[in-house]
């Protein structure tokens, strides 16, 4: 997997916005809602015994004869967990390749900020994972390049299995088509309740959203080889669109309800644009 140098330079300028990361045991380069000792002023509060005298704002004391302590945003490290769906459905329309590129780019951003990254590949269950740690770019790319698609999707089991690994929580980026009859709720909530901040990236192809009418067809599922005979009429396509929209809305509402970030990408959009444009516009990256 090769990124051009210009793209890599652009990636180096980006870093994650971990808005709701609650705690981190190590100092890092990411701002946190936890008040810390970075150079970035955030607020004042009354002086209390034991506070560091260096942070008393003497100018305010002179004007108001009252002691206030300046608070600074805490600079914390943000572990990034890249969880990639490698089920057989991801092989269609090169969705897995697209997902790997996004994962590689996001991993590269993390590495360039000295963040720890962990990687997990899942199908019916978690099939492989790398614990969070500081890695080099080659390790990351090599690992991702080795991923193969196959088997059915099991989002719930896979994500629950990942939380059971007791990794240090951070930002969990789940890249999948989310086409799982078993659902996603339990898996995502287990991540959430384990302290992860969750970013969902749904990767689909345009034909999956808007199939082309084709008369009598026999559909064959790539994952379980299930078949279905139908006449791909406009009436059925209309019903299909309604189901797709309803599912997207359901996923959006779920992520909103549980304070997760959700982003949907189609493979027609160049993945560079996803990283440099859409994720920045969505304030997932800065």
């Amino acid at each position, binding site marked *: 997997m090769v990124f051009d140098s210009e793209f890599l330079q652009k990636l180096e300028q980006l870093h994650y916005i971990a808005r709701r990361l609650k705690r981190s045991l190590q100092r890092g380069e990411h701002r946190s809602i936890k008040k810390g000792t970075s150079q970035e002023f955030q607020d004042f509060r009354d002086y209390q015994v034991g506070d560091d005298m260096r942070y008393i704002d003497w100018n305010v004391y002179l004007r108001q004869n009252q002691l206030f302590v300046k608070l600074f945003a805490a600079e914390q490290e943000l572990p990034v967990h890249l969880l990639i769906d490698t089920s*057989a*459905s*991801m*092989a*269609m*329309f090169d*969705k897995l390749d697209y997902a790997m590129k996004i994962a590689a780019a996001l991993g590269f951003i993390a590495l360039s900020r000295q963040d720890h990254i962990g990687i997990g590949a899942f199908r019916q269950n978690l099939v492989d994972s790398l614990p969070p740690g500081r890695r080099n770019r080659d390790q990351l790319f090599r690992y991702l390049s080795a991923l193969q698609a196959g088997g059915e*999707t099991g989002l719930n089991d896979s994500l629950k299995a990942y939380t059971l690994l007791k990794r240090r929580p951070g930002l969990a980026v789940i890249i999948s*088509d989310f*086409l*799982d*009859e078993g659902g996603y709720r339990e898996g995502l909530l287990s991540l959430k309740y384990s302290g992860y901040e969750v970013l969902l990236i749904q990767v689909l*192809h345009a034909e*999956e959203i808007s199939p082309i009418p*084709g*008369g*009598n*067809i*026999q*559909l*064959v*599922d*790539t*994952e379980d080889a*299930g078949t*279905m*005979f*139908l*006449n791909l*009429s406009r*009436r*059925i396509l209309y*019903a*299909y669109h309604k*189901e*797709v929209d309803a*599912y997207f809305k359901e996923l959006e509402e779920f992520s909103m309800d549980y304070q997760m970030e959700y982003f949907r990408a189609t493979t027609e959009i160049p993945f560079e644009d996803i990283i440099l444009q859409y994720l920045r516009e969505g304030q997932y990256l800065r």
Partner: protein
Amino acid sequence: MTFASPIFLLLLPLLLIILLIHLFRQRSTILEVSSLFFWNRVMGPRKRIILQIIRNLILLLQLLAALFLIFSLARPLVENTSTGLQGRQVMIIDGSASMLATSGSESRFRNALELARAEIRKLSGSLSIILAGAEPQPLIAYTESKGDLRDALQNLDATQGPADMDAALKMARELGAEGITIISDGAFSATLPENARVLFVEGQSENVGITGFSVREGDNGLWQIYCEISNFSSITQIGTLTITLEGKPFRSFEYSLPSGARDSFSSYYEGLEGGRLVAEISSEDDFFIDNRAYELLQAGPSISILLVSPGNFFLESLLRVDSDVQLTWAEEYREGNWDMVILDRSRANTGSLPSLNIASPPEGFGILGQGAPGSIVSWDRNHPILDGTSLADLVTSQSYPIENADGIRHLISGTNGNLLSIYETPGKKFAYLAFPLESSSLVLDTNFPILMKNILTWLVPEAGRSSAYKAGERLPTEQGTLISPIGDQAWRNEPVYAEFTGFYRFLSKTGKRSFFPVSLNSRSESNLNFSIPAVEAEVAVTNAEQTRSPVWSWFLSAVILLLLAEWWLWGKE
């Protein structure tokens, strides 16, 4: 259910084409998708089952629509159950000789019995059955038992003579029938009551037959043998007429008759001995009864007639050449030992003596005034008086139609009233010609001698007649044993109707032996191609086909409904 055009049923294999098209449509292209996730939501298991049912239903509807379309083309007929007989019903089955004609493989009479059985199946009231022959024969009294009614039709056959439908209808009325069903080939002429309906059996048949065969003693002492053959078939008939005496052929004639034509053959017999004469034609037609005729070479009684007339050249000439007639002319009526009297333009009280009245009705009957010149409108062609005549071209310059009265029956109707009427009660019998003979075209017509002979025979059946009898006539068989042509033997106390053609043998109680030759000799019975409108037009007529209602429109409507349903289901699919 039967089909009027079953040839269209050959289209039934086309249903296979629909089946093949359906199977071909099932051959869909295979499309690999990443997941059936969304498709399962659109087409859940329940929907898929419904879809499969709809598809099968569409195929079923298409097949049914095609099947019904083929059925509608084949013009299906179903038995009309709505006309089931209700209440007290009488069924009259025509047992005339023409019913013995074959239509296809079965005789008309067999077809009539089938029709009768079909009516019995639909019966919802009580039914009595009458066989109409020379005299009506009640077969079974009113009963609701369909089994008994069917039994009454067992071993039944038509007679070999004409049927008196008037008498059968009269019997039905006397039985208090609420409805009358006549099953016939149409060879009858009767005024049908309002509650009567007619079921016709198949009517078209080919026939050539002997319509006249008689022997008389000529003035020269020789026997004159006369035979008439009529061709009622649609093609020219060629054959041989053979006359045998006591089984030995002594005359034969070749005949060639175009369709609709008739020809007569005559010969003399110079022998001394008498005997049984049989005329036979070689014909393979649909009606065998009239292929043979029977006569006797024996002297018969002559008829004594008093002609009361101011002078009538044609009538006198005709009667004088008839060797069977002993004619006495008078200007006024006088009593005597007459068999009958002819009153030409004169009136007289003749008592119970049979009479032919010409242009002046008998005492006690009036006229409706003088009619202007006119022509014939209709005539009762099945009455014995008009048998063998064709009076369509008869014109009269004046007429004196008789007033209607009880017992009067009009046989010929003209534009200016009735031209020939008859009257018959136990004490009186006459025929009335309403026009002077010399003021009509009749006297110049070949029908004139036939008509007059028929009138004389009707007025005085026992006297002056040929020794031959027509089937259906009464044989003078008082107190003796009668053996029919088919060998039935029975003691008789009174005259009986001749039901079969051939020679009847009669042994009187005094030991005298005599033969009665019985022939059909009837153009009306030999002509098998009757036109149904011969029956009174205002009477509701139901023919055999009408008892099976055509239901093609039902099937066509079903096709439209099926196609609409299929179109609707197609949209659902």
